[in-house]
């Protein structure tokens, strides 16, 4: 195991976040705060409670998930795409590192950044709404699992993308709709029965549901199922990345 390499990559990626602190931290915090003000305070005060939780508080876990997913993906995707684009990836490819070190470095840094971001948003939310966290351990577990899983997914996109457009495509066209339709702003039980069934194909439902449960002990699907689905998605991403490194797909050909 080449630990100095993990440290070097991780340090490099974290330093990049500090250089772009406006983009990596302030702008997601800003946009999430706007959601709180509009949906939580302005509109939320006129919406009735959901499962005994005020609407403003109800959307907090979903909003954190929304940022966590998009930021994990874009952090990790950009982190590996940019060296490919600029050509500096030659050094990574010629270094004595396996996919384990590369992942720990790039995905570890991307996940760390989104976890920090998630916690900042959580703190920001506490300024606007009354928060309670019933299961802090599980809250953190879902936070970390989701950040890692979607950073892995972002890493795959960063390898797959052959232009900046594709890099933006998946987060914008797939993840954002899935998150909005995944119960961020409502409980699935509020949907017509047919759409409730369709929604179960949306992986984000399981993340938001599990995460919300850790706050308020209310969930759309069982917590075990949430956890299982998240871990399953993580394993699929890991398998794809293992294959990418084994075959050199898009990086060594």
């Amino acid at each position, binding site marked *: 195991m080449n630990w*100095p390499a993990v440290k*070097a990559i991780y*340090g*490099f990626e974290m330093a990049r976040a500090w250089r772009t602190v406006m983009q990596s931290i302030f702008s997601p915090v800003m946009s999430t705060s706007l959601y709180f003000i509009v949906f939580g305070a302005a509109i939320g005060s006129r919406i009735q409670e959901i499962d005994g939780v005020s609407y403003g508080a109800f959307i907090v876990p979903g909003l954190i998930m929304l940022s966590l997913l998009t930021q994990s993906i874009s952090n990790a995707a950009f982190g590996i795409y940019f060296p490919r684009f600029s*050509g500096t990836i*030659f050094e990574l490819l*010629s270094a*004595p590192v396996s996919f384990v070190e590369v992942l720990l470095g790039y995905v570890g840094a991307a996940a760390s950044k989104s976890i920090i971001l998630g916690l900042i948003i959580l703190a920001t939310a506490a300024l606007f709404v009354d928060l309670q966290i019933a299961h802090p351990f599980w809250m953190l577990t879902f936070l970390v699992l989701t950040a890692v899983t979607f950073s892995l997914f972002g890493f795959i996109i960063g390898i797959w993308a052959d232009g900046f457009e594709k890099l933006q495509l998946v987060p914008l066209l797939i993840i954002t709709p899935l998150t909005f339709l995944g119960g961020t702003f409502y409980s699935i039980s509020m949907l017509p029965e047919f759409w409730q069934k369709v929604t179960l194909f949306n992986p984000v439902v399981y993340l938001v549901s599990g995460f919300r449960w850790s706050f308020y002990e209310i969930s759309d699907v069982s917590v075990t199922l949430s956890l299982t689905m998240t871990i399953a998605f993580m394993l699929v991403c890991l398998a794809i990345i293992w294959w990418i490194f084994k075959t050199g797909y898009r990086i060594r050909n």
Partner: protein
Amino acid sequence: MKVTMDRIVSVRNVNKIYASGHQALKSVNLDIQRGEIFGLLGPNGAGKTTLISIICGIVNATSGHVSVNGHDTRNAFRAARSIIGLVPQELTADAFETVWDTVTFSRGLFGKKPNPALIEEILKDLSLWDKKNDQLMTLSGGMKRRVLIAKALSHEPKVLFLDEPTAGVDVELRKAMWDTVRGLQKSGVTIILTTHYIDEAEEMADRIGVIRAGEIILVEEKNALMHKLGRKELRLDLRAPLTTLPDNLAEFELTLNDDGSALCYNYDRAKEHTGINALLTALSNEGIAFRDIETSQSSLEDIFVDLVNDQS
């Protein structure tokens, strides 16, 4: 430079066919001896960079094997890659990083513990010390090139690949880089150099390999190559110009140059009988007098051009 005869890099039957169908390398076999400076020459698109990229692990070979210091570059890639340093042809660098950070990063990436004293020494040797806190995007091309060399040296490689190291570098800096490379060789580093500047290979290399259209067409000690393939030319400045060559001189391969005022004779130095005596006797018999005589030897560049053209 004395070169011990053991291989540090061994390339066996390496083929590379890109997804486009282009075959960049055709059954390449090549051995690099420990401690030598090996000059890899070839026209653009001959496969030099592909070959280096395969040895360094950046590109997968379609078939064949490469070992570095006895370690297979695929099965034992950690051991193989950890002793290789690569200075790529393209000036690729993270624009926003500082010189110090990027060189330190490279050392870490290759699994070496931090060693600020060594990095300082490398930066000073490459005249980059006063730029250590500058962002890479603010540096000139020549400086970026040196940063790439510093990055490659930061992890103390035993084998160093220099892919066109002096492209776009001014004459003074080129000479300084050559000194650096010689210094590295003295410290035991094996160097593989690709270059467009044949005089660079002629100046630096112990052995020369020529690659053309994905095939290694020749590997030879530089001096032997110059001796074997280098032709010598004898030039005689005539007292009186000739319009045509006399029939008695037809057996010699002569050319009349400079409006008939110079006779040029190409001969092979390696042969026992160069024909010079016979030529001079024949000229004397014909009553052709000359006022000056000079010989010149073809450069590696001439040899290279002949080689590449011969086989195409």
